[in-house]
């Protein structure tokens, strides 16, 4: 944790225009209609996320974090507004192109791990490769390398049911990296884990971000993640409350939630 914070400080803050934008949203709105009741989950979000940065999204429960994720991950379509991933308008893609996008360009990490119960650890990791048409042998080798990366090489034959939550989430991280995505979308990746295991997951994510240049976008309630993020984005009631660079908020974090950091 300590070293993470130190490496963190080495990364310069990224002013707009200097680094290439990977995700851009324009007037993103989402309204859920349930019978007579309308829920405004997102009320117009304009944001630019840069390539290879580590972004945390914070906000109270029900503020629209997951909804925002679904939009930028190409999992759901907005009521109005646009999402550009690398300047490609997601709304313009057909179903098959969307599948391609999800398969190779974006990795998803869920709070509930979402491993396929009847597959072994290794099989789970190689599923996206099968969808991408990677030959079986190559998929197995790459899968083992990824499992090695998350420290689960010895457990490749275990079924999810035989693994701890942290191990399952690490498998899920390996799976999300299967096709070398440019973006990792993590919706509360440590929500179901204890502090220590959560920290392990954080460090793996940070390592992927640093070593492989993957853009990591994390929705979380865990304030420790702030320490390893490049930028932090607060969402409140479907709007962006605030965006800040890591360096700008150190003091505040210390004063608001200092006890959470260590």
């Amino acid at each position, binding site marked *: 944790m300590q070293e993470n914070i130190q490496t963190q400080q080495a990364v310069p803050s990224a002013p707009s225009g200097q680094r290439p934008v990977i995700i851009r949203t324009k007037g993103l709105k989402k309204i859920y209609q349930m019978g007579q009741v309308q829920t405004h989950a997102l009320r117009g979000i304009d944001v630019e996320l840069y*390539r290879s940065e580590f972004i945390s999204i914070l906000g109270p429960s029900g503020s629209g974090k997951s909804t925002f994720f679904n939009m930028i991950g190409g*999992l759901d379509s907005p009521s109005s507004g646009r999402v550009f991933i690398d300047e490609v308008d997601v709304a313009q893609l057909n179903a*098959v192109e969307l599948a391609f996008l999800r398969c190779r360009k974006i990795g998803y990490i*869920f*709070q509930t791990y979402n491993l*396929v119960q009847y597959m072994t650890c290794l099989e789970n990791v190689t599923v*996206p490769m099968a969808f991408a048409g990677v030959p079986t042998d190559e998929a197995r080798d790459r899968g083992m390398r990824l499992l090695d990366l998350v420290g689960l090489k010895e457990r490749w034959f275990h079924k999810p049911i035989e693994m701890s939550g942290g191990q399952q989430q690490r498998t899920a991280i390996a*799976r999300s990296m299967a096709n070398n995505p440019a973006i990792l979308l993590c919706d509360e990746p440590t929500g179901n884990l204890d502090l220590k295991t959560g920290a392990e997951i954080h460090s793996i994510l940070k390592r992927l971000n640093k070593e492989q240049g993957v853009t990591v976008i994390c929705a979380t309630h865990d304030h420790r993640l702030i320490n390893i993020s490049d930028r932090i984005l607060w969402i409140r009631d479907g709007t962006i409350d605030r965006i800040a660079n890591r360096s700008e908020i150190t003091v505040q974090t210390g004063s608001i939630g200092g006890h959470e950091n260590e």
Partner: protein
Amino acid sequence: MKTIEVKNQVRLPLGKCVELVLNGVRFRLFRSAITVVIIALAVAFLMTMLTESMVSLEVGKALKARTGPRDSLLFWSSRLTSPMNEQELTGIMAQAKAGDDRWREFQAWGALDDRGVASLAENSAAAMTYLNDFFSQITEGQRRPLVGRASGAAIFTTLGEPDRLATFRTEFAKLGKQMPTSLGEFEKFLTEWKSLSAARHKILKANADSVNMARAVLNDAQPVAFLASGKEDLPAKLARCGFVIDGRQAGIISVQARQSLDNEKIESLLKIPLVQAKLADRTKVKIASINLGTLLGEISGSSGAEWLAKLTATSEYYKAADQLKMPAFNLTDLAIPVPPAGQDQAAQEKFKKDAQAFVAANAERVRQVARGRLKDNKLAEIEASVLVSGESKGFMGFSPRTLWLIVVSFIVCVVGITNAMLMSVTERFREIATMKCLGATDGFIMVNFILESCMQGIAGGMIGSALGFILGMLRSWVSCGAMAWEQMPGAVLLAAMGCAIVTGVLLSALAAVYPAYVAARLAPMEAMRIE
């Protein structure tokens, strides 16, 4: 730096799909087993019906071959005593094949060449088609306006009159029904029928003459007794009256006629109170409940047969039979030994021996006749059951009722599978959504579910068709006895099994379409949802 460039997602090869599905099926073995059982039941029902219907068809054919001699005997006994009418002639003529016995009879009776008989046969076949497929299919009320009171072959003669034909034309147009052929074709047939009328009547006349001659030869004897009188000279005897029969057929008929006479003799035994009393004594059955079955059952065994032969050789029996004016009991072609007139010791000895041999031979024949008769009874029973099951043959030999039951079983099956699959889809919402997040296309999800169902269909189809085959054979066995196994049409049933399996697969694929569609339409963001 990674750049994003969006292309079409690759399509997964079928092998990979199958592998993934099998993986999943193994995991959800219990639910899969339920689906398999549903399919197996529906397929088993179909297969049972198929097996039964096909076996009964085969048994029916075989029965026809076995009861052929009996039918021939009936045919010949009646044709020796009563002349044919036009209707019967038409029916027989329609069946005549070039060069067979009937064909040659018609040639002789009508003084016709092959061409002449051929045109008669062709015309008669057409007549039978019109009768069976049209005139018998409409009601009496519908027929009246068309042809008046005429029925059978007489219809065609009636329509030979121009004014009746004109009425027929107008009434037929009003009826709005279909003929087996066009009306023009029918009228052409009517002209032909009229032109052949002379030939037909010549044949009928010659037939009547032959019957008169035969009656003279029979001289009040039963025709069966006449037909039983030896196969060697039977064709010659009949030929003298003008009938044609080949040696082989004559042999079959004379054997059958002798059996029939033997049967009559054994049946007549029961008229004698002495035999009844002794039989009741022997079988411990009340006299009142003694019937032919009791007698046949008893004497089909060798000890019973011997008992009867001995009984019918006693003076007690002779006295009783004599009172009823019944001849001594001997089966056909067994000669009763005659007692010697004088006191010659050697002749007496020979008579004693002959009498013993006669009793032994009678016993053996009695046993055979009884067995044959029991077998015939069984055949008649099977025939009845086959006829009943073969009644109102519709599509593929199924009665409409059976067809309806099969359709209902299919619907129930499809609904059952759809329900099971829908439950499976609901349970796997998160898994499906996750798969979609990982790059599965809608098509893959769809194929995945349909493949899964098809595999269950194959398993269920195989189990079901095997089960259905066994059940169907058992049911056929109950109704047709050993004949079911003897006549089992192996190749046809194998093909039916194939069809049943394919049906199972198609049903399950059909049933999976909706659940698969639901699964394919599932939004990938469902994966994010937390219960």
